[in-house]
């Protein structure tokens, strides 16, 4: 499975061996940074403005969006080999799954 992936990755890598072709220009980076800044501003706004029941989900969604923007664009994961994504996301989702279960055993189940 990964073997074939490995080979295609290899070709891809050759294709954008020149890093300038990562699909991002300086302006692009600045735009991404501005989006991130705007999202952070929105997050901070929740502290001052009451969002009612949307408060929690909104914050969590914003957090995830920011996270994945940084990972995808600044860390180039979107443009880089899928193997890197596999390495990182395995760790990330394993962490989320395991720790969420672990917290759940504290929160919900009593006896």
């Amino acid at each position, binding site marked *: 499975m990964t*073997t074939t992936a490995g080979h295609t990755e290899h070709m891809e890598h050759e294709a954008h061996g020149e890093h300038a072709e990562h699909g991002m220009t300086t302006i692009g980076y600045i735009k991404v940074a501005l989006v991130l800044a705007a999202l952070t501003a929105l997050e901070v706004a929740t502290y001052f403005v009451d969002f009612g029941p949307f408060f929690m989900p909104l914050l969590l969604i914003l957090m995830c969006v920011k996270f994945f923007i940084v990972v995808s664009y600044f860390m180039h994961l979107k443009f880089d080999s899928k193997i890197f994504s596999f390495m990182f996301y395995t760790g990330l989702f394993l962490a989320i*799954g*395991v720790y969420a279960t*672990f917290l759940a*055993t*504290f929160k919900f189940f009593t*006896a």
Partner: protein
Amino acid sequence: MAIIERPAPVGAPALPAPVTPTRTYGALRRPVATTGWKSWVFTVDHKKLGIMYGAVAMFFFIVGGIEAVLIRLQLAAPDNKVLTADVYNQMFTMHATTMVFLFVMPMAAAFANYFVPLQIGARDVAFPRINAFGFWTLVGGGIIVNLSWFLGGAADGGWFMYAPNSGPVFSPSNGVDFWALGLQITGIASLTGAVNLIVTVLNMRAPGMSLMKMPVFTWLQLVVQFLLLFAIPVITVALFLLSFQRSFGATFFDVSAGADPLLWQHLFWIFGHPEVYILVLPSFGIISEVLPVFSKKPLFGYPFVVFSGAAIGFVGWGVWAHHMFASGLGPVSVAVFSIATMAIAVPTGVKIINWTMTIWGGKLNFTAAMHFAIGLVVLFTIGGLSGVTHAVAPSDTQQTDTYYIVAHFHYVLFGGAIFGLFAGFYYWWPKVFGKQLNERLGKANFWLMVIGMNLTFGPMHMIGLQGQPRRMYIWTEARAGEGLFNLGFWNRVASIGSLILTVGVLLFLINVWKTARSKQVAPLDPWDARTLEWMTTSPPKEHNFDAIPTVRHLDEFFHRKYAQDSVTHEIKQVSTAEDIVRDQEANADKHIHMPSPSYWPIILASGLPVIALGVIYAIPVAIVGAVIVVLALFGWSLEPSTAPETDFDPPASEDGTKELAPLG
């Protein structure tokens, strides 16, 4: 150890004399020695490191074994007084810690280090200096953990070190501090090793070796390294919390501050359960190599073994709470984890079936390695089935923390992990040292170990089901029951068994000693093996392969030796190992650059125990350690991975001494 002190390797090509630099080199010239102690201490060669890993692990196996025998002597009679309660508690804590962290893990790392690069046709691992660092870090961690014996008593909270019993009030000696810091250090070793081996397996494979053409041992090691990569940080967090509490007054496990002792249990077992597979999967890998070779058949269902290995690795993350069925998690958690635990029995069962089917219809050759491999299948099955009985949570509440559990995991870890490692010793000894271990002694070794192991751990099933809890420094006649076959009887049998087991292990050491003294050289391919590591000299040259092979098949080496007659469908030998190696040497790669040895790994590694001692005794010492670490890190980063051109072996083509090693 006899392992290290081998004479100049037989069969290795004479290496060129070290090149004298053309000009005066200043301080910290790269070490270039190829002989003598410097060539070992500063080496980055995966094979030398593998041997050193093995030697250190063997040392700790003996230490852990002595601890085990002392435990059994104490339990040989009711209200016995061989050990005091205090010493006994230290003894079982350190027995488990030593066996898990300082024997099985390093020994598996020894095999991984030595054979993974060879099996995938690489010249070395991806990060040779990190490899050396990992080894020396392990040594440092092992020393710190065991130093506590001489500095006021070892850790006494059990290897699981449940809070709050591990807190400063309940464990007032420094033992737990040494334990926690030592394990953090060995954790660093495992983590760096994991990164290194994963990159090696993914990036350094010989041309044509796709993932699904990789030997199973390499595959399962890959799974193990992923488990380590993700499990070590979890225990690191737990140990950090514990160290912060003990050394800096944090309140993480202080119940009077409102702490929840279950936090430690979760963190420990989130690490602890994958750890079980970290211990046993390498051995599964070893016997998945041994069984096919001595059955003259490929591994049955290779993709199933690979995927079930990966599945075990994955599902292994979802079952940790089965160590906590009695901890009071609540019925929902217990039910969920109970079912998940049963689910993991399926991929494990798949492996047993595949091993059985591998020998089914084969042409079995009962060497010592094969004995151990089949022994593993049988004994592990017993351990696996007793495992199913306590996957059933209500049943587990009767069995957990009794000797039944001790029996279960010793069948899994002794019958599984250690038998696999022994199979590996007998199978790969000729590869590593160019000499075969004595087969006759080997079989005696096997039978003594099987008998000893079953006498030691078999009765523990009975002891546990009759209600004797674990971790008790004494047992009493009053609770032993009536009749001849009562709990006391089985305790005595177990103690006798442990002595037989000791004799078995001693036999192995005698075998090693005899083999080291023997002059008989092993043939190039003594077992008619199937994988790449046998496609070079024994022991392999520093650069492993004269020419990197191109891989076309799973079991490439076998397919180079044998071919199927297209008419009769009979399988016939078409070539010998000698031919293949000779052919390789004739077409040797022209210019082989190997990474140079370095001082920095061992310096960096030596800084860590200093920090640990500083945290325990005086913070200024820790600062000195930190300075060493920073210095070494930067020295390392500024150092090119290879010494300048002049330090290299001369290009192979100019090497006049290059001759075929005497074969056979």
